[in-house]
């Protein structure tokens, strides 16, 4: 049986993702201009620094393999006793944007015994200078909620 949302949501018709499709095309062109090998090489050049720092940070659990070659840019993590949404809010104040939630992977998170994580995504815009504010924000959140 279907379940209906409450009005007005149940009356909203779907709209084709026209702008998103256009944006996807532009993003693909941009990445092809950079060269995907270059994108991957850049990710791999900075990822070990982030993985090392995060795995050595007190209370931080990094999800997924710790071998850079087995990962792509995003690093999902949790911080003991701090809800990811609170981590995200704190990191905001440190100028660091992370995504929080289940990242459209609810069954996987359930399997991992979690209901959400924070996720820092390393990309062509990032370099190792971004590590410091990330760690500062995580420490701020950890200390703040432990007080």
């Amino acid at each position, binding site marked *: 049986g279907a379940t209906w949302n409450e009005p007005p949501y149940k009356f909203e018709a779907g709209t084709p993702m026209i702008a998103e499709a256009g944006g996807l095309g532009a993003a693909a062109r941009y990445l092809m201009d950079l060269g995907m090998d270059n994108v991957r090489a850049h990710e791999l050049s900075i990822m070990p620094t982030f993985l090392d720092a995060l795995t050595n940070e007190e209370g931080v659990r990094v999800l997924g393999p710790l071998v850079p070659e087995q990962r792509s840019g995003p690093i999902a993590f949790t911080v003991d006793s701090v809800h*990811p949404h609170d981590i995200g809010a*704190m990191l905001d*104040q440190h100028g660091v944007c992370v995504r929080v939630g*289940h*990242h459209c992977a609810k069954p996987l998170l359930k399997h991992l015994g979690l209901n959400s994580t924070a996720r820092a995504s390393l990309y062509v815009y990032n370099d190792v200078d971004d590590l410091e504010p990330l760690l500062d924000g995580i420490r701020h959140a950890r200390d703040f909620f432990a007080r």
Partner: protein
Amino acid sequence: MSLDDLYQDIILDHYKSPKNRAPSLEGEDVHVHHSNPLCGDEMDLRIHVEDGTLAGIVFDGEGCSISQSSASAMTEAVKGRSLADVLELAEDFRLMMHGEESSRPDDLGDGIAFQGVAKFPVRVKCALLGWMAVKDAIETFQHGDHEHVVTHDGEPA
């Protein structure tokens, strides 16, 4: 207003030592389960009604500090009130989350500490979760039902 101001001591106290947090309630009349896919919050709320009064209320679940502390403060503010009064108070809180001045600050109790959440739009849903759950629990009771499950709309998280 900074984030540290948002997370006032009142809010942190409720987060660390929640009131009326329990997995079951004696004399339970209604159990509602509310979840918010935006952040993965899950909340179970149980109420017991006596002569049109909210005689018992407990919540349980998992979520961020704002959602859990707001639910805790909510349970204290609504316990012992008539069902109609709780619905009015819930509406007062909802309007406060949309930037309006509360007309019943004393009745909201510690709930008034969440006034600043209105300035952080992405957290408004967190603060509202418990209040929406109690409103739903009362309406479910008034319909003569005992269970209701609600998923709140949000961006895919």
